[in-house]
């Protein structure tokens, strides 16, 4: 496998770009693996990579029913941040951000992580006070880059926003995390796949799990579209379809509903917006950034009803475009290029699960709500740790399925047990 370096890029430039081979193998499934990870998205691939790298487990298969990067890995707005408020969450996401900062070097694959700042607009003195409280908490708990900007600073840094004093919600300032930003979603999937493959992991695409055979307390075999596979340990990382797999394993119900979330990209423009800007007031919920190709990438709320369909509805297209117009009126004549929809696990408190299950050799990684992309490095890191050591690391102890029974919810929005509200 070619190791990427400035020299290999230079050399291939001189020799007609003929030196690049396949980045990962396309192996035939073996009949048995020590660990089988179901789901070849970012979380599954990251888990396989860290299992092999940190824990020396290499007889691993990652089963993907479609193709790599074709699920939610390719259906997000690529925002990475760690401005969370609840204990447990904020440390976890900060850990994830630290992994992001070194990810390209670690994987020897340019994931184009761009720490361009995450700017949440504020529209009232009350919102500024609330944000100051949150961001002070972040500074006290290990996230040093949280700042509150006043209006003159914001105008200087992000000149194109609608600063009209007569706007329905005039902008008064912003809460800023400067180390936050975006990454190239495909590159993250490909980088983890390539890294895992180099360490001996079998990545099996077009391999859908169709049945789960088990005894009273273990999973014994997975039936797949490419034949039966037995496994020492099985890990589910199939956000969006977790309940289906859970039912297949005969495990009953989960505190999860599947909803769909849309995102949009415009035609490419010249450089316009250097940061991720978030607009959330008066029922609007909107986030926008500009991709390296120039497209304005933006998204908003869920489609509001439960769905497994990977296609979005038109009222949300209108909602997103209306929000875009109210915050960046200069986009008025820009054409929408594409929109897409991903199916996400919305959990009952808006927080994820990385935990053991009622079956002794089955592990669960699910319930990522809106936030799965940014979490993928830490999710893989700690899920691998959980699978290898069969006990939750102290960092993920609160992310178990039993927290509702204990009366503990990690509810960032304070929205209560209604999955669609945790956006």
């Amino acid at each position: 496998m070619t190791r990427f370096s400035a020299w290999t890029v230079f050399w291939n430039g001189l020799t007609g770009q003929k030196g690049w081979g396949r980045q990962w193998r396309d192996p035939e499934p073996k009949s048995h693996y020590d660990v089988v990870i179901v789901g070849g998205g970012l979380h599954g691939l990251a888990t396989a990579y860290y299992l092999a790298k940190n824990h020396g487990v290499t007889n691993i298969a990652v089963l993907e029913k479609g193709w790599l990067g074709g699920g939610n890995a390719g259906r997000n707005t690529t925002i990475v941040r760690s401005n969370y408020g609840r204990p447990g969450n904020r440390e976890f996401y900060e850990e994830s951000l630290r992994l992001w900062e070194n990810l390209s070097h670690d994987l020897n694959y340019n994931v184009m992580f761009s720490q361009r700042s995450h700017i949440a607009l504020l529209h009232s003195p009350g919102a500024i006070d609330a944000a100051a409280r949150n961001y002070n908490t972040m500074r006290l708990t290990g996230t040093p880059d949280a700042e509150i900007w006043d209006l003159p600073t914001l105008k200087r840094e992000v000149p194109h926003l609608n600063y009209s004093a007569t706007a329905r919600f005039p902008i008064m300032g912003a809460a800023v995390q400067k180390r936050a930003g975006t990454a190239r979603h495909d590159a993250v999937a490909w980088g983890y796949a390539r890294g895992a493959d180099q360490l001996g992991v079998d990545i099996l695409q077009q391999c859908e799990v169709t049945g789960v055979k088990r005894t009273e307390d273990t999973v014994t075999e997975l039936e797949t579209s490419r034949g039966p596979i037995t496994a020492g340990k099985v890990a589910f990382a199939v956000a969006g379809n977790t309940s289906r797999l859970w039912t297949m394993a005969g495990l009953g119900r989960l505190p999860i509903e599947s909803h769909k979330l849309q995102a949009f990209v415009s035609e490419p423009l010249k450089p316009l917006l250097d940061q991720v800007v978030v607009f959330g007031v008066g029922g609007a919920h909107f986030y926008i950034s500009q991709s390296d190709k120039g497209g304005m990438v933006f998204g908003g709320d869920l489609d509001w009803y439960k769905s497994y369909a990977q296609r979005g509805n038109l009222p949300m297209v209108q909602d997103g475009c209306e929000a875009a117009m109210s915050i960046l009126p200069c986009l008025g004549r820009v054409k929408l290029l594409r929109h897409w929809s991903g199916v996400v696990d919305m959990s009952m408190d808006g927080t994820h699960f990385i935990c053991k299950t009622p079956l002794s050799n089955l592990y669960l990684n699910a319930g990522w709500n809106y936030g799965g992309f940014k979490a993928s490095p830490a999710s893989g890191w700690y899920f691998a740790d959980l699978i290898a050591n069969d006990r939750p690391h102290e960092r993920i102890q609160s992310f178990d399925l039993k927290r509702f029974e204990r009366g503990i919810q990690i509810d960032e929005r304070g929205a209560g047990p209604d999955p669609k509200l945790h956006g």
Partner: protein
Amino acid sequence: MIRIPCPFCGTRDHSEFTYGGDASITYPALDAPKEEWHDAVFLRDNICGPQLETWHHVHGCRMWLVIERDTMTHEIMSVRPANPKLSALFEDNSEADQ
């Protein structure tokens, strides 16, 4: 856009409605053990396929409806008022029509 045949207003765009949630949930008695309450409040079947769900015609007649809808195709199989008495009335009428 999903088009919902409201029994009171006729067929309308789903953007007139808000989605309530799983209509198959029945809440236990107030003095039921807390495990039963946990299951009713926090656990979901999360069906891929036809499921019963509540919708509120918030920009129309403001009635709560129970709709059977496929969560993969979004096809609507049946719509009835959530209030069982009203729902029974509608069933009587439709039988009389036949």
